């Protein structure tokens, strides 16, 4: 009887350990998910900054960009929104056509 009880206790301990492990794995996943999204965004911005010219964004002389920068807030916001929406073109199309 005592041996059976011990066996059950051991099994419960193993299962509890497994449960705690999976909870911890899930929590870690949740915690890194946000950082991963941030990381992808940062990588995207980094690539755009460095290689904009390879995807059809020619680099004009820096003084032209700077002179026009204070006059182009609206265009700048549009460009940023475009960059953020580029991952979900269907979503953007639906919102443009007002399909819900």
């Amino acid at each position: 009887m005592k041996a059976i009880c011990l066996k059950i206790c051991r099994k419960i301990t193993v299962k509890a350990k497994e449960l705690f492990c999976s909870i911890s794995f899930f929590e870690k996943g949740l915690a890194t998910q946000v950082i991963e999204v941030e990381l992808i965004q940062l990588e995207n911005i980094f690539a755009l900054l460095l290689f904009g010219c390879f995807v059809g964004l020619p680099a004009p002389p820096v003084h032209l960009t700077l002179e026009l920068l204070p006059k182009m807030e609206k265009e700048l916001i549009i460009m940023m929104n475009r960059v953020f929406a580029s991952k979900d073109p269907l979503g953007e199309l639906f919102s443009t056509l007002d399909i819900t």
Partner: protein
Amino acid sequence: MIPEIYFFMGKGGTGKSTCSAVFSVQQSNKGKRVLINSIDPAHNLSQIFGRTLFHKCNRVENNLYAKETDLNVWKKKYLTSIEEEMRLAYKHQTAFNLNKYFKTLKYSPGLEEYAMILAIEDNLKNKENVEIVIFDTPPTALFLNFISLPYSSLKWLEQLFSLRTLILKKRGTIDRIRRGNKQKEKESDMVSEGITSMISRFKDLSEIFRSKKSHYTIVMNPDSLSFSESQSIVNHLGDLGINVESVILNKYDGQRIFFESVVSTFREARVVTLKKEEEEIVGLERLKEISEPWRAPN
């Protein structure tokens, strides 16, 4: 009044600063009001004149003024004005997000050349009321980048202007459709105004660079490297529609064959020589001594 402008250019170490200093002293001795300005980030004029020169105009003698332009001052001034303009024009959050990038913008390629343009534009306002401005320029690569800047900027600006015109036309069409027949006052577009003002600035500058007011002198030594680099300068400036007026063969040691090959290569330019000096050319008195027998480039 726009003064006469002289650019002394050439390979590094050929004696551009010395030749421009000798020329400035010679012209000032002729009674002209002269300003010599070093736009080379590695200045030498202080050592040549034997006195400390600053970013602001320094009086060397009666008619002679000198300065060593600090390009970092121009870069800082320029970036601060853009930042200030952004703070006024942008909503708080957008301006705040962009501000952090301004710290690294001063290291952007091309900004040094633009700082030179700003310095030259400032000189052309002629606050010192001089008749002649002499520019001691940086070595070939940086000089050619700087002198090409108004031309390359104009190419970009013309493209940007035609694209902006198209955008405004489309906006106008949408606005007309939405408003029906109701007339609306034409709104001014800050971006196209900015582009137009830059086009006019760079056109003026490129015209001045090509005009008879601007004089270009190459300083070279009797060696094959500075000879071939001088040829590249002549070709590059020729592409921009600029002619080199004179070539100074500095540190000339009397090799007749070399002199003749320079004369035959640079047919359009006047070739003058400045012989190799045993003693260093430092100090105003020494510059005067050298300038007296020297046949100036003009």
